């Protein structure tokens, strides 16, 4: 089972839209796919019209008392399931600290799911904390949506430095430009610079009100605007991610 985490310290950069739309594409291609909404805000859960509540909360889930299998719900889309968010996820760090090996706890929890799913997407809350460390350990790849501004690049640098210094298991870091507004000269400039110098992926997701509409339509972009520009951008992104990881 391959684990992808949409991750960024910053909020509002497109983590959830990315997780939801790539998970949708993954399932459409025939891979058995699970999306775990780790953000207490529960946006991904909301997009799929599922209740953001899990029985027993984060405490019982992380301590192993609740079997994640019992909490998983099928979305409206074939092959795509969701492990819902819960407001108690705001306490995940505290729950993780209770276990003997906090950073490995998540990976351990995900282990039995590998028999049922080919791809797991983790939609992460914006933070850099114990749960982020646990996510780094559990993931094969970090998908880092980045808005093309100098501050975002600085944050990206910070992340890469942090991960570079680790001795432990390393997820592949795949940053990509997201919410790109081609009318802004700074965006154009930063995108050009990124392409020339950095390790960002070639695929870029344009800013689009169609993507914002996910909150109204409450379904993945591909389900209501499959041939639109942003939808095709997500498809390119997905293809490039898979090619890069091999």
């Amino acid at each position: 089972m391959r684990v992808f985490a949409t991750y960024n310290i910053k909020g509002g950069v497109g983590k959830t839209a990315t997780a939801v739309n790539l998970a949708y594409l993954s399932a459409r291609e025939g891979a058995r796919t699970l999306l775990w909404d780790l953000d207490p805000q529960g946006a991904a859960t909301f997009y799929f019209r599922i209740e953001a509540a899990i029985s027993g909360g984060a405490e019982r889930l992380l301590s192993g008392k609740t079997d994640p299998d019992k909490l998983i719900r099928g979305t409206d889309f074939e092959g795509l399931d969701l492990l819902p968010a819960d407001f108690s996820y705001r306490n995940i760090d505290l729950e993780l600290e209770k276990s003997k090996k906090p950073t490995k706890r998540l990976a351990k929890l995900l282990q039995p799911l590998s028999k049922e799913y080919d791809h797991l997407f983790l939609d992460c809350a914006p933070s850099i904390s114990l749960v982020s460390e646990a996510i780094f350990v559990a993931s094969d790849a970090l998908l880092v949506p980045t808005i093309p501004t100098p501050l975002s690049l600085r944050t990206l640098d910070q992340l890469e430095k942090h991960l570079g210094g680790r001795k432990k298991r390393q997820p592949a870091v795949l940053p990509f430009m997201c919410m790109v507004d081609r009318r802004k000269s700074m965006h154009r400039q930063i995108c050009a610079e990124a392409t020339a110098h950095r390790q960002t992926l070639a695929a870029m997701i344009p800013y689009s009100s169609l993507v914002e509409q996910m909150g109204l339509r409450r379904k993945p972009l591909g389900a209501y605007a499959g041939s639109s520009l942003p939808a095709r951008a997500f498809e390119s992104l997905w293809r490039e991610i898979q090619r890069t990881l091999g």
Partner: protein
Amino acid sequence: MPVKSKIFRLGSPADRAKIVKSLASRFTLERDVGAPVETVFMDTFDWRIHHRGGALFLESSDSVRQLTWQTGPKGSSESLSVDEAPGFEWDLPDSEFRSRLAGIIEMRRLLPVAKVVSRRESFRILDSRRKTVARVHVESRRAGAPESRVCRRAMPSILVASGIRGYDEDLEDLFEFFGVELGLEIEADSELAAALAAVGLTPVEARSKITFDLEPKMPADSALRQILGRLLQTLEENEDGVRSGLDTEFLHDFRVSSRRTRSALTQLKGILPARAAGRFKREFAWLGQVTGPTRDLDVYLLKMPSYRKSLTSGVREDLEPLGVYLQGLQRQARSKMTRSLGTKRYAKLLSDWRTFLEKTTPVEDLAGLAGRPILEVARARTWKAYRRVLKGGSAIGADTPAEALHRLRIDCKKLRYLLEFFRSLFTPKDMAVLIKALRRLQDNLGDFNDYEVQQDALVTFARDMSDKGLAGAVPLMAMGRLVELLELGQERERQRFHKQFDRFAAKKNRQRFQRLFKSREAS
């Protein structure tokens, strides 16, 4: 992930409309656009999947093709997207689905057994957030034979209620609505059973080993004719399959019947008129010769996947020229064989043989061995064959040349055929034990021989491919590696022989053989 569902039977089309109306008044529904679906049920020639209680089918709708395997009537089902109907398990992508299916169907081909065309009205049941929590299909279906282009036979209409993971309560509510409130009955027939019933076909009984049904007091002549008659029947059943070449097992079963026929004629000499028996023996030998090369090549082609697996991943592709070469040879061999099977000689063999076997002679007129009770003859011949195996095997030491093992293998085969011919004359348990013991020894001797034959064949192929410029150094080296691996395998089997033979010749088995087959008169 297993999807829970229940299937209810519907009455008339008028009922359908009423039911949909009730459903809409009770639940929030959304209608889905449904396209007609064509379902083709598939199974091996010997109905392996069906006999395990499951069903395998390919659903085609628009341009989407999905292969579903229901592993039991109430059990779960799994689906796989495919581009076209699979012929063999190796046509499917590497997956657990494929390995489990391969465990059941092995190398046999999947053939279409029934076709159903269904028109569906599909609905989604929604909750307060307008999330789909369950699905309902109302289906009208028609069946057709697999070769037919149009499906015309009427089948009962059904309603399928299926769930979405994590929404079990909603599904239970739906089941209760249909089952209790509307009083619908569960559809007891599987779709395959209903389709077959509509078309008037029945699943062939599992083709287990051919069984013979002999009575101890039957005259040897009648018993032998019955045995040979059953073998002829098997031969005829496999003919079409041999000609079509769809599945290697047809030719295999065809040849096995032919071999057993010759063995029966040889080992039970003196029962049937000598001249006729001699003539047919020669003709079946000819049949063996014209079908042999194709079977040999089938076997090598079937071995290719395991050959590839036995080499390391860097070297596997180097075997491709061998695969291509073998396919070419097999095609040639098959056309030659097909021509032979089209000759008058072949047709005459089968019709004359049938005529010969159907000629019954009154018991009083049967002279000599032909008139003896079959039990007597069976015991005498089997005992003789058994003694030969014991003698041959005991004489084999660590340094005995391979030739002795090959001879023993043949003697074991003769004994095995006799045990199988006469199985019905003795207690099932005794025969099961003896045949199992003999089979273990045969497997060891068979593998030993097989390793040697494969080595020789690969060397011959390599020479030919090299002479014809069909393979460069690299493929030849890969084949050389294979030969070495086979040599190691052969050596392993040789080491195992002594233990296997001792097991077979153990006291308990000897006593059983004696009890069953040794003559009660002076030993």
